[in-house]
Protein backbone atom coordinates (compact mmCIF):
# COMPACT_ATOMS: atom_id res chain seq x y z
CA UNK A 1 0.00 0.00 0.00
CA UNK A 2 1.21 3.47 -0.87
CA UNK A 3 2.02 5.97 1.89
CA UNK A 4 1.18 9.56 1.00
CA UNK A 5 2.14 12.90 2.48
CA UNK A 6 -1.23 14.69 2.73
CA UNK A 7 0.24 18.13 2.10
CA UNK A 8 1.98 16.97 -1.09
CA UNK A 9 -1.24 15.41 -2.36
CA UNK A 10 -3.17 18.57 -1.53
CA UNK A 11 -0.53 20.69 -3.25
CA UNK A 12 -0.49 18.72 -6.51
CA UNK A 13 -4.29 18.47 -6.55
CA UNK A 14 -4.77 22.20 -6.01
CA UNK A 15 -2.28 22.90 -8.78
CA UNK A 16 -4.16 20.57 -11.13
CA UNK A 17 -7.52 22.11 -10.21
CA UNK A 18 -6.01 25.54 -10.83
CA UNK A 19 -5.16 24.62 -14.42
CA UNK A 20 -8.72 23.43 -15.04
CA UNK A 21 -10.69 26.09 -13.17
CA UNK A 22 -9.50 29.68 -13.40
CA UNK A 23 -11.98 30.88 -10.75
CA UNK A 24 -10.11 29.05 -8.00
CA UNK A 25 -8.06 31.34 -5.72
CA UNK A 26 -5.57 30.39 -3.03
CA UNK A 27 -6.09 32.47 0.12
CA UNK A 28 -3.34 32.44 2.71
CA UNK A 29 -2.84 33.79 6.22
CA UNK A 30 0.94 33.53 5.99
CA UNK A 31 0.06 29.85 5.65
CA UNK A 32 0.50 29.20 1.93
CA UNK A 33 3.71 27.21 2.13
CA UNK A 34 2.81 25.24 5.23
CA UNK A 35 -0.62 24.40 3.89
CA UNK A 36 0.56 23.18 0.49
CA UNK A 37 -0.39 26.08 -1.77
CA UNK A 38 3.12 27.03 -2.96
CA UNK A 39 2.94 25.29 -6.35
CA UNK A 40 -0.43 26.86 -7.13
CA UNK A 41 0.90 30.29 -6.23
CA UNK A 42 4.01 29.80 -8.36
CA UNK A 43 1.91 28.82 -11.37
CA UNK A 44 -0.92 31.31 -10.78
CA UNK A 45 0.52 34.31 -8.94
CA UNK A 46 -2.47 36.42 -9.96
CA UNK A 47 -4.80 34.04 -8.15
CA UNK A 48 -2.96 34.20 -4.85
CA UNK A 49 -4.51 36.31 -2.11
CA UNK A 50 -2.17 36.79 0.84
CA UNK A 51 -3.99 38.26 3.81
CA UNK A 52 -1.32 37.95 6.47
CA UNK A 53 -1.86 36.74 10.00
CA UNK A 54 -5.48 37.83 10.31
CA UNK A 55 -7.86 34.91 9.98
CA UNK A 56 -11.07 36.78 10.74
CA UNK A 57 -10.30 39.25 7.99
CA UNK A 58 -9.29 36.44 5.61
CA UNK A 59 -12.60 34.63 6.01
CA UNK A 60 -14.54 37.83 5.36
CA UNK A 61 -12.38 38.49 2.31
CA UNK A 62 -13.16 34.99 1.04
CA UNK A 63 -16.88 35.72 1.34
CA UNK A 64 -16.44 38.92 -0.67
CA UNK A 65 -14.39 37.15 -3.34
CA UNK A 66 -16.96 34.34 -3.62
CA UNK A 67 -19.69 36.91 -4.18
CA UNK A 68 -17.93 37.78 -7.44
CA UNK A 69 -17.88 34.17 -8.64
CA UNK A 70 -14.43 33.20 -7.44
CA UNK A 71 -13.91 29.94 -5.55
CA UNK A 72 -11.56 30.84 -2.70
CA UNK A 73 -9.66 27.99 -1.07
CA UNK A 74 -8.36 29.19 2.28
CA UNK A 75 -5.94 26.91 4.11
CA UNK A 76 -4.88 27.77 7.65
CA UNK A 77 -3.88 25.83 10.78
CA UNK A 78 -7.19 24.45 11.97
CA UNK A 79 -8.01 26.24 15.26
CA UNK A 80 -7.19 29.65 13.82
CA UNK A 81 -9.57 29.09 10.93
CA UNK A 82 -12.43 27.27 12.60
CA UNK A 83 -12.35 28.82 16.05
CA UNK A 84 -10.68 32.23 15.92
CA UNK A 85 -12.69 33.13 12.83
CA UNK A 86 -15.74 31.13 13.88
CA UNK A 87 -18.22 33.97 13.71
CA UNK A 88 -17.04 35.06 10.26
CA UNK A 89 -17.38 31.43 9.11
CA UNK A 90 -20.83 31.21 10.67
CA UNK A 91 -22.24 34.50 9.39
CA UNK A 92 -20.36 35.27 6.18
CA UNK A 93 -19.80 31.72 4.88
CA UNK A 94 -22.48 29.52 6.47
CA UNK A 95 -25.60 31.65 6.80
CA UNK A 96 -24.61 33.65 3.71
CA UNK A 97 -24.07 30.32 1.87
CA UNK A 98 -20.98 31.56 0.06
CA UNK A 99 -18.96 29.25 -2.14
CA UNK A 100 -15.81 29.17 0.00
CA UNK A 101 -13.62 26.14 0.69
CA UNK A 102 -12.14 26.15 4.18
CA UNK A 103 -9.17 23.88 4.70
CA UNK A 104 -8.09 23.22 8.27
CA UNK A 105 -4.42 22.33 8.05
CA UNK A 106 -3.79 19.64 10.62
CA UNK A 107 -7.01 18.32 12.16
CA UNK A 108 -7.13 16.52 15.49
CA UNK A 109 -3.76 15.87 17.12
CA UNK A 110 -1.72 16.61 13.99
CA UNK A 111 0.23 19.29 15.87
CA UNK A 112 0.54 17.11 18.95
CA UNK A 113 3.94 18.51 19.91
CA UNK A 114 2.68 22.11 19.85
CA UNK A 115 0.02 21.82 22.52
CA UNK A 116 -3.65 22.63 22.77
CA UNK A 117 -3.42 25.99 20.96
CA UNK A 118 -2.52 24.17 17.74
CA UNK A 119 -4.37 20.90 18.23
CA UNK A 120 -7.88 20.79 16.86
CA UNK A 121 -10.14 18.38 18.66
CA UNK A 122 -13.19 20.65 18.64
CA UNK A 123 -13.27 21.72 14.99
CA UNK A 124 -15.93 19.23 13.89
CA UNK A 125 -18.08 20.30 16.85
CA UNK A 126 -18.05 23.94 15.86
CA UNK A 127 -18.23 23.47 12.10
CA UNK A 128 -21.13 21.04 12.15
CA UNK A 129 -23.47 23.55 13.77
CA UNK A 130 -23.03 25.97 10.88
CA UNK A 131 -25.85 25.96 8.34
CA UNK A 132 -25.04 24.94 4.76
CA UNK A 133 -21.61 23.64 5.81
CA UNK A 134 -20.37 20.36 4.34
CA UNK A 135 -17.64 18.66 6.38
CA UNK A 136 -15.14 16.32 4.77
CA UNK A 137 -12.47 14.47 6.77
CA UNK A 138 -10.05 12.74 4.42
CA UNK A 139 -7.94 9.92 5.85
CA UNK A 140 -5.47 8.99 3.11
CA UNK A 141 -3.95 10.33 -0.10
CA UNK A 142 -6.89 9.25 -2.24
CA UNK A 143 -9.33 10.97 0.08
CA UNK A 144 -7.31 14.19 0.31
CA UNK A 145 -7.35 14.50 -3.46
CA UNK A 146 -10.98 13.45 -3.70
CA UNK A 147 -12.11 15.77 -0.90
CA UNK A 148 -10.55 18.79 -2.58
CA UNK A 149 -11.99 17.93 -5.98
CA UNK A 150 -15.44 17.24 -4.50
CA UNK A 151 -15.29 20.49 -2.53
CA UNK A 152 -14.56 22.53 -5.66
CA UNK A 153 -17.37 20.79 -7.58
CA UNK A 154 -19.82 21.39 -4.71
CA UNK A 155 -21.63 24.73 -4.87
CA UNK A 156 -21.54 25.97 -1.28
CA UNK A 157 -19.36 26.11 1.82
CA UNK A 158 -17.13 23.12 2.53
CA UNK A 159 -14.79 22.49 5.45
CA UNK A 160 -11.98 20.02 4.77
CA UNK A 161 -10.21 18.67 7.84
CA UNK A 162 -6.73 17.94 6.55
CA UNK A 163 -4.50 15.30 8.10
CA UNK A 164 -0.82 16.16 8.44
CA UNK A 165 1.19 12.99 8.91
CA UNK A 166 1.99 10.45 6.18
CA UNK A 167 -0.92 8.09 5.64
CA UNK A 168 -1.16 4.61 4.18
CA UNK A 169 -3.86 4.00 1.60
CA UNK A 170 -7.01 2.75 3.27
CA UNK A 171 -7.89 0.75 0.15
CA UNK A 172 -6.65 0.44 -3.42
CA UNK A 173 -7.59 3.85 -4.86
CA UNK A 174 -8.70 2.21 -8.13
CA UNK A 175 -11.44 0.33 -6.27
CA UNK A 176 -12.97 3.47 -4.72
CA UNK A 177 -15.41 6.14 -5.75
CA UNK A 178 -16.21 8.18 -2.68
CA UNK A 179 -18.90 10.88 -2.94
CA UNK A 180 -20.20 13.55 -0.59
CA UNK A 181 -22.82 12.29 1.85
CA UNK A 182 -22.37 8.55 1.33
CA UNK A 183 -20.39 6.25 3.57
CA UNK A 184 -18.05 3.62 2.19
CA UNK A 185 -17.62 0.04 3.37
CA UNK A 186 -13.95 -0.67 4.06
CA UNK A 187 -14.16 -4.10 5.71
CA UNK A 188 -17.15 -6.45 5.73
CA UNK A 189 -18.36 -8.17 8.87
CA UNK A 190 -21.56 -8.85 10.78
CA UNK A 191 -21.03 -8.70 14.56
CA UNK A 192 -19.32 -5.42 15.37
CA UNK A 193 -19.59 -2.23 13.34
CA UNK A 194 -16.88 0.42 13.53
CA UNK A 195 -17.77 3.79 12.07
CA UNK A 196 -14.75 6.02 11.59
CA UNK A 197 -13.71 9.22 9.87
CA UNK A 198 -10.45 10.71 8.63
CA UNK A 199 -7.26 9.28 10.04
CA UNK A 200 -9.20 6.84 12.20
CA UNK A 201 -10.50 4.85 9.24
CA UNK A 202 -7.12 3.19 8.74
CA UNK A 203 -6.84 2.55 12.49
CA UNK A 204 -10.35 1.08 12.50
CA UNK A 205 -9.37 -1.14 9.60
CA UNK A 206 -6.32 -2.36 11.55
CA UNK A 207 -8.53 -3.00 14.57
CA UNK A 208 -11.00 -4.91 12.42
CA UNK A 209 -8.20 -7.09 11.03
CA UNK A 210 -7.22 -8.05 14.58
CA UNK A 211 -10.81 -8.68 15.63
CA UNK A 212 -11.62 -10.69 12.52
CA UNK A 213 -8.47 -12.76 13.15
CA UNK A 214 -9.78 -13.79 16.55
CA UNK A 215 -13.22 -14.57 15.24
CA UNK A 216 -15.14 -11.36 15.91
CA UNK A 217 -16.67 -10.46 12.59
CA UNK A 218 -16.13 -6.71 12.25
CA UNK A 219 -17.30 -4.28 9.63
CA UNK A 220 -15.70 -0.87 9.07
CA UNK A 221 -17.71 1.95 7.58
CA UNK A 222 -15.91 5.10 6.42
CA UNK A 223 -17.72 8.38 7.02
CA UNK A 224 -15.40 10.76 5.20
CA UNK A 225 -18.42 13.07 5.01
CA UNK A 226 -19.31 14.00 8.57
CA UNK A 227 -21.96 16.45 7.37
CA UNK A 228 -24.36 15.80 5.73
CA UNK A 229 -24.22 12.45 7.46
CA UNK A 230 -25.31 9.30 5.61
CA UNK A 231 -28.59 8.79 7.49
CA UNK A 232 -29.88 6.13 5.14
CA UNK A 233 -26.87 3.90 5.73
CA UNK A 234 -26.93 4.49 9.49
CA UNK A 235 -30.58 3.58 9.86
CA UNK A 236 -30.04 0.52 7.68
CA UNK A 237 -27.08 -0.63 9.81
CA UNK A 238 -28.21 0.26 13.31
CA UNK A 239 -29.97 -3.05 14.08
CA UNK A 240 -27.66 -5.43 12.23
CA UNK A 241 -24.79 -5.60 14.74
CA UNK A 242 -24.19 -6.60 18.34
CA UNK A 243 -22.35 -3.33 18.97
CA UNK A 244 -21.48 -0.13 17.13
CA UNK A 245 -18.30 1.82 17.87
CA UNK A 246 -17.53 5.25 16.46
CA UNK A 247 -13.90 6.36 16.30
CA UNK A 248 -12.62 9.86 15.68
CA UNK A 249 -9.45 11.86 16.26
CA UNK A 250 -11.61 14.47 17.94
CA UNK A 251 -13.29 15.27 21.20
CA UNK A 252 -16.05 12.87 22.19
CA UNK A 253 -18.13 16.01 22.69
CA UNK A 254 -20.17 16.89 19.61
CA UNK A 255 -18.12 15.07 17.02
CA UNK A 256 -18.95 12.25 14.60
CA UNK A 257 -20.03 9.89 17.39
CA UNK A 258 -22.45 12.35 18.85
CA UNK A 259 -23.93 13.11 15.41
CA UNK A 260 -24.60 9.40 15.02
CA UNK A 261 -25.96 9.11 18.55
CA UNK A 262 -28.34 12.02 17.92
CA UNK A 263 -29.56 10.32 14.79
CA UNK A 264 -30.00 6.84 16.22
CA UNK A 265 -31.37 7.71 19.64
CA UNK A 266 -34.94 7.61 18.43
CA UNK A 267 -34.52 4.37 16.45
CA UNK A 268 -36.26 1.38 18.06
CA UNK A 269 -34.27 -1.77 18.93
CA UNK A 270 -31.02 -0.17 17.90
CA UNK A 271 -27.63 -1.63 18.71
CA UNK A 272 -25.72 -0.10 21.67
CA UNK A 273 -23.38 2.67 20.56
CA UNK A 274 -19.92 3.42 22.00
CA UNK A 275 -18.08 6.63 21.18
CA UNK A 276 -14.28 6.43 21.05
CA UNK A 277 -12.37 9.68 20.91
CA UNK A 278 -10.67 12.20 23.16
CA UNK A 279 -12.13 13.26 26.48
CA UNK A 280 -13.01 16.93 26.76
CA UNK A 281 -9.84 19.00 26.41
CA UNK A 282 -6.60 17.65 25.01
CA UNK A 283 -4.06 17.29 27.80
CA UNK A 284 -1.21 15.36 26.21
CA UNK A 285 1.75 16.69 24.24
CA UNK A 286 4.28 14.53 22.40
CA UNK A 287 5.04 12.64 19.19
CA UNK A 288 1.88 12.04 17.13
CA UNK A 289 1.71 8.24 17.23
CA UNK A 290 2.53 8.17 20.91
CA UNK A 291 -0.18 10.68 21.75
CA UNK A 292 -2.70 8.79 19.59
CA UNK A 293 -1.78 5.62 21.45
CA UNK A 294 -2.24 7.30 24.83
CA UNK A 295 -5.73 8.35 23.78
CA UNK A 296 -6.50 4.80 22.63
CA UNK A 297 -6.76 5.82 18.99
CA UNK A 298 -4.49 3.27 17.32
CA UNK A 299 -5.63 0.03 15.73
CA UNK A 300 -4.37 -2.07 18.63
CA UNK A 301 -5.97 0.13 21.27
CA UNK A 302 -9.28 0.33 19.39
CA UNK A 303 -9.39 -3.49 19.13
CA UNK A 304 -8.55 -3.75 22.85
CA UNK A 305 -11.32 -1.32 23.77
CA UNK A 306 -13.85 -3.19 21.65
CA UNK A 307 -12.87 -6.51 23.24
CA UNK A 308 -13.04 -5.02 26.74
CA UNK A 309 -16.41 -3.41 26.08
CA UNK A 310 -17.78 -6.62 24.57
CA UNK A 311 -16.54 -8.64 27.55
CA UNK A 312 -18.16 -6.19 29.97
CA UNK A 313 -21.43 -6.42 28.08
CA UNK A 314 -21.35 -10.22 28.20
CA UNK A 315 -20.75 -10.09 31.95
CA UNK A 316 -23.39 -7.39 32.47
CA UNK A 317 -25.88 -7.90 29.66
CA UNK A 318 -28.44 -5.41 31.03
Amino acid at each position, binding site marked *: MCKANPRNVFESTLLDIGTINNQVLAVSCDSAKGAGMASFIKSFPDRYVEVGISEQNAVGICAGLAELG*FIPVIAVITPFLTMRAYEQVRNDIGYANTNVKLVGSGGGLAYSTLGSSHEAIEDISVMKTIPNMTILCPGDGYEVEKALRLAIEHDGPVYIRMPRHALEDIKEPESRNIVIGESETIVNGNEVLIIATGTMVKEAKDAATKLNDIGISTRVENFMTVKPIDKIKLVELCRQFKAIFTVEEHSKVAGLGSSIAELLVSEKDRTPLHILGIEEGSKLVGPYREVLNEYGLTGDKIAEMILKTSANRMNNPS
Partner: protein
Amino acid sequence: MKLTPEKIDYIEHKAYNIRKHIIEACINYGDGHAGPSLSCTDILAVLFIDIMNLNINNPKDENRDYFILSAGHKCLALYGALVERGFEQATIMQTYNQLNALIPGHPDRNKLRGIDFSTGSLGHGLSLACGLAKGLKLKGKHNKVYILMGDGEQGEGSVWEAAGYASHNCLDNIVAVIDKNGLQINGKTNEVLKTDSLQERYEAFGWEVKTIHGHYIEGIHDALLSVPFKEKKPSLIIANTIKSKGLSFAENNVNYHHWDPKPEEVIQARKDLEIIGKRWENV
Protein backbone atom coordinates in the same frame (compact mmCIF):
# COMPACT_ATOMS: atom_id res chain seq x y z
CA MET B 1 -20.94 66.73 -11.17
CA LYS B 2 -21.89 69.34 -8.61
CA LEU B 3 -25.48 69.16 -7.39
CA THR B 4 -28.02 71.70 -8.59
CA PRO B 5 -30.27 73.32 -5.94
CA GLU B 6 -33.15 71.26 -7.36
CA LYS B 7 -31.19 68.04 -6.98
CA ILE B 8 -30.19 68.95 -3.44
CA ASP B 9 -33.84 69.55 -2.61
CA TYR B 10 -34.76 66.23 -4.24
CA ILE B 11 -32.22 64.30 -2.15
CA GLU B 12 -33.25 66.15 1.01
CA HIS B 13 -36.83 65.14 0.28
CA LYS B 14 -35.75 61.52 -0.13
CA ALA B 15 -33.82 61.73 3.14
CA TYR B 16 -36.96 63.08 4.80
CA ASN B 17 -38.94 60.14 3.41
CA ILE B 18 -36.35 57.69 4.74
CA ARG B 19 -36.60 59.29 8.19
CA LYS B 20 -40.36 58.98 8.01
CA HIS B 21 -40.04 55.29 7.10
CA ILE B 22 -37.69 54.72 10.05
CA ILE B 23 -39.88 56.51 12.57
CA GLU B 24 -43.15 55.00 11.38
CA ALA B 25 -41.65 51.49 11.30
CA CYS B 26 -40.53 51.86 14.93
CA ILE B 27 -43.94 53.20 15.93
CA ASN B 28 -45.71 50.43 14.03
CA TYR B 29 -43.71 47.59 15.53
CA GLY B 30 -43.23 49.17 18.95
CA ASP B 31 -39.45 49.50 18.93
CA GLY B 32 -36.40 49.66 16.71
CA HIS B 33 -32.91 51.06 16.26
CA ALA B 34 -34.12 54.56 15.48
CA GLY B 35 -31.15 56.54 16.80
CA PRO B 36 -28.37 54.97 14.72
CA SER B 37 -30.60 54.71 11.63
CA LEU B 38 -31.47 58.40 11.77
CA SER B 39 -27.85 59.48 12.14
CA CYS B 40 -26.80 57.82 8.87
CA THR B 41 -29.94 58.67 6.89
CA ASP B 42 -28.55 61.62 4.95
CA ILE B 43 -25.44 59.65 3.99
CA LEU B 44 -27.51 56.72 2.69
CA ALA B 45 -29.86 59.11 0.88
CA VAL B 46 -26.97 60.61 -1.09
CA LEU B 47 -25.45 57.18 -1.77
CA PHE B 48 -28.62 55.41 -2.87
CA ILE B 49 -30.34 58.27 -4.66
CA ASP B 50 -27.43 59.81 -6.51
CA ILE B 51 -24.02 58.22 -6.11
CA MET B 52 -24.26 54.46 -6.45
CA ASN B 53 -24.73 52.67 -9.72
CA LEU B 54 -27.61 50.29 -8.94
CA ASN B 55 -30.07 48.36 -11.06
CA ILE B 56 -33.48 48.01 -9.45
CA ASN B 57 -34.56 45.50 -12.11
CA ASN B 58 -31.51 43.33 -11.55
CA PRO B 59 -30.09 43.86 -8.05
CA LYS B 60 -27.31 41.36 -8.81
CA ASP B 61 -26.17 43.26 -11.93
CA GLU B 62 -22.43 42.62 -12.25
CA ASN B 63 -21.83 46.26 -13.09
CA ARG B 64 -23.46 47.61 -9.95
CA ASP B 65 -21.68 49.27 -7.10
CA TYR B 66 -21.71 47.29 -3.88
CA PHE B 67 -22.92 48.47 -0.50
CA ILE B 68 -22.28 46.91 2.88
CA LEU B 69 -24.01 48.20 5.99
CA SER B 70 -21.38 46.98 8.41
CA ALA B 71 -23.27 48.43 11.35
CA GLY B 72 -26.27 46.28 10.49
CA HIS B 73 -28.46 47.61 13.28
CA LYS B 74 -28.84 50.82 11.24
CA CYS B 75 -30.87 48.74 8.77
CA LEU B 76 -34.05 50.79 8.95
CA ALA B 77 -32.17 53.51 7.07
CA LEU B 78 -31.06 50.94 4.48
CA TYR B 79 -34.59 49.59 4.06
CA GLY B 80 -35.86 53.13 3.70
CA ALA B 81 -33.17 53.93 1.14
CA LEU B 82 -34.02 50.80 -0.87
CA VAL B 83 -37.68 51.89 -0.87
CA GLU B 84 -36.81 55.40 -1.99
CA ARG B 85 -34.53 54.09 -4.72
CA GLY B 86 -37.39 51.92 -6.00
CA PHE B 87 -36.31 48.42 -4.97
CA GLU B 88 -39.34 47.93 -2.73
CA GLN B 89 -42.79 49.37 -2.09
CA ALA B 90 -43.11 51.66 0.94
CA THR B 91 -45.60 49.22 2.48
CA ILE B 92 -42.74 46.85 3.24
CA MET B 93 -41.72 49.16 6.10
CA GLN B 94 -44.88 48.15 7.96
CA THR B 95 -43.62 44.56 8.10
CA TYR B 96 -40.48 45.44 10.09
CA ASN B 97 -39.68 42.67 12.58
CA GLN B 98 -42.92 40.81 11.87
CA LEU B 99 -42.96 37.02 11.60
CA ASN B 100 -41.42 36.02 8.25
CA ALA B 101 -40.69 39.65 7.38
CA LEU B 102 -38.17 40.44 4.68
CA ILE B 103 -36.89 43.28 6.85
CA PRO B 104 -35.86 42.02 10.28
CA GLY B 105 -33.77 43.90 12.84
CA HIS B 106 -30.59 43.28 10.86
CA PRO B 107 -30.30 43.09 7.07
CA ASP B 108 -30.45 39.59 5.60
CA ARG B 109 -29.45 39.10 2.00
CA ASN B 110 -31.31 35.79 1.89
CA LYS B 111 -34.53 37.68 2.51
CA LEU B 112 -34.47 41.07 0.80
CA ARG B 113 -33.18 41.79 -2.69
CA GLY B 114 -30.73 44.63 -2.91
CA ILE B 115 -28.82 43.55 0.22
CA ASP B 116 -25.30 42.56 -0.80
CA PHE B 117 -24.33 41.06 2.56
CA SER B 118 -26.14 40.11 5.74
CA THR B 119 -24.69 41.96 8.70
CA GLY B 120 -25.39 42.36 12.37
CA SER B 121 -22.28 41.39 14.26
CA LEU B 122 -20.06 44.46 14.19
CA GLY B 123 -16.64 44.44 12.55
CA HIS B 124 -17.36 42.05 9.67
CA GLY B 125 -18.14 44.56 6.94
CA LEU B 126 -14.74 45.96 6.10
CA SER B 127 -13.36 42.45 5.45
CA LEU B 128 -16.29 41.71 3.15
CA ALA B 129 -15.62 45.01 1.39
CA CYS B 130 -11.94 44.08 1.02
CA GLY B 131 -12.89 40.75 -0.56
CA LEU B 132 -15.22 42.44 -3.03
CA ALA B 133 -12.70 45.19 -3.79
CA LYS B 134 -9.82 42.75 -4.26
CA GLY B 135 -11.99 40.53 -6.46
CA LEU B 136 -13.02 43.49 -8.62
CA LYS B 137 -9.34 44.41 -9.04
CA LEU B 138 -8.54 40.82 -10.03
CA LYS B 139 -11.30 41.01 -12.63
CA GLY B 140 -10.14 44.42 -13.87
CA LYS B 141 -13.53 45.94 -13.08
CA HIS B 142 -14.22 49.48 -11.91
CA ASN B 143 -17.28 49.04 -9.68
CA LYS B 144 -16.96 50.70 -6.30
CA VAL B 145 -17.49 49.14 -2.90
CA TYR B 146 -19.20 51.41 -0.39
CA ILE B 147 -19.34 50.52 3.26
CA LEU B 148 -20.90 52.30 6.22
CA MET B 149 -19.55 51.62 9.71
CA GLY B 150 -20.34 53.04 13.12
CA ASP B 151 -17.87 54.85 15.35
CA GLY B 152 -18.49 52.47 18.24
CA GLU B 153 -17.80 49.64 15.80
CA GLN B 154 -14.21 50.82 15.53
CA GLY B 155 -13.55 48.98 18.79
CA GLU B 156 -13.69 45.66 16.93
CA GLY B 157 -10.19 44.34 16.19
CA SER B 158 -11.27 42.80 12.90
CA VAL B 159 -11.91 46.31 11.53
CA TRP B 160 -8.20 47.03 11.88
CA GLU B 161 -7.16 43.75 10.27
CA ALA B 162 -9.18 44.81 7.25
CA ALA B 163 -8.01 48.43 7.37
CA GLY B 164 -4.42 47.24 7.05
CA TYR B 165 -5.28 44.84 4.25
CA ALA B 166 -7.11 47.51 2.22
CA SER B 167 -4.17 49.92 2.14
CA HIS B 168 -1.54 47.19 1.71
CA ASN B 169 -3.42 46.03 -1.38
CA CYS B 170 -4.04 49.57 -2.73
CA LEU B 171 -7.81 49.04 -2.72
CA ASP B 172 -8.77 52.52 -3.91
CA ASN B 173 -12.15 51.13 -4.99
CA ILE B 174 -13.24 51.00 -1.33
CA VAL B 175 -15.15 53.99 -0.03
CA ALA B 176 -15.78 53.70 3.70
CA VAL B 177 -17.97 56.06 5.68
CA ILE B 178 -17.97 56.18 9.46
CA ASP B 179 -21.23 57.48 10.88
CA LYS B 180 -19.63 59.27 13.81
CA ASN B 181 -22.59 60.09 16.01
CA GLY B 182 -20.45 59.95 19.12
CA LEU B 183 -22.78 57.72 21.13
CA GLN B 184 -23.08 54.03 21.78
CA ILE B 185 -25.27 51.95 24.06
CA ASN B 186 -23.33 52.60 27.26
CA GLY B 187 -22.64 56.29 26.75
CA LYS B 188 -20.45 58.67 24.79
CA THR B 189 -18.17 56.75 22.44
CA ASN B 190 -15.18 58.71 23.68
CA GLU B 191 -15.96 57.65 27.23
CA VAL B 192 -16.55 53.98 26.40
CA LEU B 193 -13.52 53.62 24.09
CA LYS B 194 -11.96 56.70 22.57
CA THR B 195 -12.56 57.30 18.87
CA ASP B 196 -11.52 60.95 18.62
CA SER B 197 -8.33 60.06 16.78
CA LEU B 198 -9.98 58.02 14.04
CA GLN B 199 -8.62 60.21 11.25
CA GLU B 200 -5.04 59.84 12.49
CA ARG B 201 -5.48 56.12 13.05
CA TYR B 202 -6.77 55.46 9.54
CA GLU B 203 -4.10 57.71 8.05
CA ALA B 204 -1.47 55.73 9.94
CA PHE B 205 -3.02 52.60 8.42
CA GLY B 206 -2.48 54.06 4.95
CA TRP B 207 -5.92 55.48 4.19
CA GLU B 208 -6.82 58.87 2.78
CA VAL B 209 -9.37 60.48 5.08
CA LYS B 210 -11.81 63.40 4.90
CA THR B 211 -13.99 64.60 7.74
CA ILE B 212 -17.36 66.11 6.86
CA HIS B 213 -20.67 67.25 8.30
CA GLY B 214 -22.86 64.16 8.00
CA HIS B 215 -26.20 65.93 7.55
CA TYR B 216 -25.17 68.40 4.86
CA ILE B 217 -26.26 66.83 1.59
CA GLU B 218 -24.01 68.88 -0.69
CA GLY B 219 -20.96 68.21 1.48
CA ILE B 220 -21.66 64.47 1.64
CA HIS B 221 -22.12 64.44 -2.12
CA ASP B 222 -18.93 66.38 -2.81
CA ALA B 223 -16.90 64.02 -0.63
CA LEU B 224 -18.39 60.88 -2.20
CA LEU B 225 -17.85 62.29 -5.67
CA SER B 226 -14.18 62.96 -5.12
CA VAL B 227 -13.15 59.36 -4.36
CA PRO B 228 -10.64 57.94 -4.47
CA PHE B 229 -9.15 60.85 -2.58
CA LYS B 230 -5.78 59.56 -3.64
CA GLU B 231 -4.93 56.98 -6.26
CA LYS B 232 -4.05 53.53 -4.89
CA LYS B 233 -5.33 54.39 -1.43
CA PRO B 234 -8.65 53.43 0.17
CA SER B 235 -10.86 56.40 1.03
CA LEU B 236 -12.54 57.07 4.35
CA ILE B 237 -15.15 59.71 5.07
CA ILE B 238 -15.66 60.46 8.74
CA ALA B 239 -19.13 61.95 8.90
CA ASN B 240 -19.92 63.85 12.09
CA THR B 241 -23.58 63.16 12.74
CA ILE B 242 -26.28 63.51 15.36
CA LYS B 243 -27.80 60.37 16.77
CA SER B 244 -31.60 60.28 16.37
CA LYS B 245 -31.43 63.24 13.94
CA GLY B 246 -34.99 64.37 13.25
CA LEU B 247 -36.53 63.25 16.55
CA SER B 248 -36.44 66.51 18.54
CA PHE B 249 -36.66 64.86 21.97
CA ALA B 250 -34.08 62.19 21.20
CA GLU B 251 -31.32 63.96 19.30
CA ASN B 252 -27.89 63.32 20.76
CA ASN B 253 -29.52 61.45 23.65
CA VAL B 254 -27.85 58.16 24.56
CA ASN B 255 -31.15 56.60 25.64
CA TYR B 256 -32.50 56.41 22.10
CA HIS B 257 -30.07 53.91 20.57
CA HIS B 258 -33.04 51.59 20.59
CA TRP B 259 -36.31 53.49 20.63
CA ASP B 260 -39.33 52.14 22.46
CA PRO B 261 -41.88 54.85 21.54
CA LYS B 262 -44.07 56.13 24.37
CA PRO B 263 -47.49 57.58 23.39
CA GLU B 264 -46.35 61.17 23.93
CA GLU B 265 -43.21 60.51 21.90
CA VAL B 266 -45.28 59.19 19.02
CA ILE B 267 -47.25 62.44 18.96
CA GLN B 268 -44.08 64.55 19.10
CA ALA B 269 -42.29 62.43 16.48
CA ARG B 270 -45.16 62.95 14.03
CA LYS B 271 -45.20 66.67 14.79
CA ASP B 272 -41.47 66.80 14.06
CA LEU B 273 -42.04 65.06 10.74
CA GLU B 274 -44.93 67.34 9.90
CA ILE B 275 -42.90 70.49 10.49
CA ILE B 276 -40.07 69.36 8.23
CA GLY B 277 -42.42 67.77 5.71
CA LYS B 278 -44.34 71.00 5.08
CA ARG B 279 -41.53 71.99 2.75
CA TRP B 280 -42.59 69.36 0.23
CA GLU B 281 -46.33 69.42 0.80
CA ASN B 282 -47.08 70.88 -2.61
CA VAL B 283 -44.46 68.84 -4.47
